[in-house]
């Protein structure tokens, strides 16, 4: 069997790792030396698809068909709050699929976020295959701890489209804790915080680690706060300065904006280490007289921090709430683990120390630590390693509809999987002929706010006054979040059952259709991404994240 890789499918960047021969997780590096792959996918007018750094560069020239942040949409309804927020912000169109899911529209075609993510996963898979020199078909993929069943399943579906069997979905903070070796410290129960400030999102998780068992106690965060916001602040400052000096509005010049964005990111990285750096942007644009604007400016860390002060303040409320939710005082935390490149920023580390009273642990590369944890768990699943066991939990209450729109919880959230819960229900009217049990997931007492999972109907109930006929409901959820429901009438033993696979919004038929369509596109081009003799076919010297068959430059 092939090796199982660990994939961190991020909002802005993705990363892949695998256990090496010594059982140590190791990041797989793309041929061009990149250790992470931007989660960007770009469609050219011709339908050719680019992924990664090149796709991100195309955002300037082709913003409407260059998709990023698919993770914000995957498995979501278009009317969800943060989806609408993202829709207002994104330069591409976000549309509603017939079932209400959020899709994107690219060159007039609606495309599911699963499919967008699958392109990223395929690129990641390709990096792994090139680095390992063998085909890769199985992976452990990480998702944020707050992802619901639909989002998790949609992520699995993205894997399937990319030709990857996602054998386990893992929570990101758990993966990070595993990679940091939080379970190796041998003492009773320990509380840790995982502070994840990435490119586009901020997540804080409070976890407990005990005898190799990880448990996420609470999560919080701000899905609209990330390292890119820091860059944007400086970028806005440059725009202002250029306007003051030259009366030129750079916001209307995509190429300038793109260059500034990259320069600001570089400056931020430099300032994480140094006290000051210089932003140089020669020939940024032309002034009103047609003369070139050569922008050059020295920037200090103090100024950068000044510009982004309010962003730092936005970190505080989610942290406080996560601690409260977990019932944990900052002093109880034994360790704070850092995830995401933005946690390298000194002010962020200072904030953590101030707020949580702990110097954050810096033992690992925050960009890669989640993928490393996923690889470590892949090793455990493959039987190559034995050190820890992660326990997945049900992310939401699972229950049934009672009365008109009431919700009765049968399986509370945070139940360790696999799990089985039983509950007895009685008929509500005399001589009731059947019961129809509708299953919902969610925390709200108001049924309409919860997500319907499916239903099971038990008919031919024995006659009797209301409340005399009893039905036992058994809900089982397995490690892969597959839900089986059995309803059994106690007296007659008559039963009905249904197995509900969590739905990510795409039906199995739709997924197969996407795969087939891809295959046809491939054969139209005349090449199938296949292995000959187990070795990877490398078409060009330069590694490209796009599929070679789809990139005209590489068809040689």
């Amino acid at each position, binding site marked *: 069997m092939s090796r199982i890789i660990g994939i961190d499918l991020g909002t802005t960047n993705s990363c892949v790792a695998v256990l090496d021969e010594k059982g140590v997780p190791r990041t797989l590096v793309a041929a061009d030396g990149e250790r992470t792959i931007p989660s960007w996918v770009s469609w050219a007018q011709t339908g050719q698809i680019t992924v990664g750094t090149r796709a991100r560069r195309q955002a300037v020239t082709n913003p409407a068909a260059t998709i990023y942040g698919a993770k914000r949409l995957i498995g979501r309804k278009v009317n969800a709050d943060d989806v609408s927020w993202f829709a207002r912000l994104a330069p591409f169109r976000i549309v509603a699929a017939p079932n209400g899911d959020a899709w994107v529209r690219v060159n007039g075609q609606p495309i599911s976020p699963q499919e967008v993510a699958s392109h990223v996963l395929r690129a990641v898979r390709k990096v792994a295959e090139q680095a390992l020199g063998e085909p890769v078909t199985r992976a452990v993929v990480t998702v944020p701890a707050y992802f619901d069943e639909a989002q998790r399943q949609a992520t699995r579906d993205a894997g399937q489209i990319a030709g990857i069997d996602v*054998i*386990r979905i893992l929570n990101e903070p758990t993966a990070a804790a595993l990679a940091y070796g939080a379970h190796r410290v041998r003492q*009773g*129960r320990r509380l840790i915080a995982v502070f994840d400030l990435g490119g586009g999102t901020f997540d804080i998780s409070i976890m407990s680690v*005990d*005898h*190799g*068992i990880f448990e996420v106690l609470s999560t919080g965060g701000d899905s609209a706060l990330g390292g890119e916001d820091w860059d944007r602040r400086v970028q806005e400052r440059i725009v202002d300065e250029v306007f003051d000096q030259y009366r030129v509005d750079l916001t209307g010049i995509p190429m300038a904006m793109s260059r500034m964005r990259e320069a600001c990111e570089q400056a931020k990285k430099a300032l994480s280490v140094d006290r000051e750096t210089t932003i140089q942007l020669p020939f940024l644009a032309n002034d009103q007289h047609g003369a070139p604007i050569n922008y050059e400016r020295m920037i200090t860390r103090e100024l950068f921090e000044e510009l982004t002060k309010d962003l730092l303040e936005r970190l505080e409320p989610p942290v406080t709430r996560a601690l409260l939710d977990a019932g944990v005082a900052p002093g109880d935390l034994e360790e704070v683990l850092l995830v995401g490149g933005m946690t390298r920023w000194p002010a962020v580390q200072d904030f953590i120390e101030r707020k949580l009273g702990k110097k954050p642990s810096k033992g690992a590369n925050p960009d890669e630590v989640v993928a490393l944890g996923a690889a470590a768990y892949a090793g*455990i*699943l*493959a*039987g*190559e390693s*034995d050190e*820890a*066991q*992660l*326990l997945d939990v049900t992310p939401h209450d699972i229950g049934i509809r009672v009365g008109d729109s009431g919700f009765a919880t049968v399986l509370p959230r945070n139940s*360790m999987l*696999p*799990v*089985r819960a039983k509950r007895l229900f009685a008929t509500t009217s005399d001589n009731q002929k059947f019961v129809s049990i509708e299953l919902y997931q969610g925390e709200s007492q108001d049924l309409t706010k919860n997500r319907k999972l499916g239903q099971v109907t038990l008919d031919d109930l024995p006659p009797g006054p209301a409340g005399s006929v009893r039905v036992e409901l058994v809900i089982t959820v*397995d*490690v892969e979040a597959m839900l089986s429901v059995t309803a059994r009438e106690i007296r007659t033993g008559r039963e009905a059952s249904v197995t509900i696979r969590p739905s990510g919004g795409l039906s199995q038929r739709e997924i197969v259709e996407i795969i087939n369509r891809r295959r046809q596109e491939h054969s139209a081009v005349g090449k199938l991404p296949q292995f000959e003799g187990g070795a990877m076919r490398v078409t060009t010297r330069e590694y490209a994240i796009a599929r070679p068959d789809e990139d005209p430059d590489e068809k040689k």
Partner: protein
Amino acid sequence: MATGALSIKLKCASWQQLSTIYKRDLMRGAMFLKASTPPAVGTQVRIDLTLPSGTVIVLTGTVEQHVTDPQRGSGVELKLAPIPAGTIWMIESALTAEQGKKRAQSPANAGVPVAPLPATQSGPVPAIGAGEDLAAAETDLVRALVAEAESLKKLNPFLVLGIGYEANDNDVRAAFGELTKRYHPDRFARYESTELRNVAAEIFILIRDAYRRVCDDASRTQVLTSLGRPSGAPRAIPTPTTMRATPPHGVPRPGGVAKIPPSQIPPITRVPDRTTPLPQQAQPSSIPTTRVHEQATKKPEPLPGRHEGNDNTTKKPEPLNAEKRPTGTSPPPGSVRPATGSPAPVAETGEHGALEDMLDQGRFDEALSAYRMLSKKNPNDRTLRAGIELCEGLAALAQRDRLEAAQRFEAALEIDPSNERAARELAEMRRQATNERKGLLSRLMGKKE
């Protein structure tokens, strides 16, 4: 007695013998040596162990203590220096290979490691050896797991987790963590069979439910109350052996791990003070370390509703001295039987305690004759009849006859479903069987456990 280094040559005539030595001694890093004139404690010993194949394995160790093993007579307990992994591997692979050969010849002749258990024996044990059919090994493992799930279903949460009734939060979590690492379906993800994962999930659900029922003080109290056990017992007693030194006051349980003020003992378990002195003797080496927790849970537990009509017999006063002394409880010198006012109506729970002490010390024959005698007097007492089966089972287990042992324990449970010890032994045996099969399957697949 020599004080210098001692050199001993041992020859294993059969693989069976090697397997016994390996399981009983080497695996726990110690060894029992029979000696009429035992060398002094601290003596260095070098053992040249010749395997049936002719290979010689050198073991070194020091004499740790002098012991009198009821099964094997008097001798010394050696603490062995760590055995090199290579040596272990050699022994293990020799045993596995040999076992495979034997199985092919006759299943009944199978070596010790994978003896069939009653619940799993729906026919001859499939031949499973290195290089042989994976599927057979897998089926075998599934059956072992199913059997284990069945036995776990009969146990209370404490027994499922293998913890004492006095366990604290940390003990519970540690036990849960260990079992999770062993039974979580993810631990079976490496095998092809989905059935394996499903059965493992069943077991994990049992473990998980048990954990949830006893994971904090309040819930433990509740469970203990429902079991008819006193709760709120002080629990500053980490090891059974240290407790043994402290004569318990009002503790009906022989292991006496928890001290329970008499006032807290609920009626159902109320018995006069324990009348048997606690042995000061160290644990005999024949009791596997895996059964440490048993110390805590000795008394056959009168679960509510389990004793249809037999309740009175379990509490029937019983003249104790008559039976006790002759059966050779032989209290250590200096210990005094506490006066209980009137010695005649000593409740037999105290007696059970004494009997189980015997079992703890491996004096199965003595315990057996005691149980037989008692049973003759009270032919209606199920607990005693179950006790007979239990003794037979433990004796069989000591002889490494696991098939016999498992059958005996099952019989004991059939007679008296509340016989905790039989339930626990059975669960433990099944757990071992599962582990061995899992290990075997992993080896067949070329993966490490």
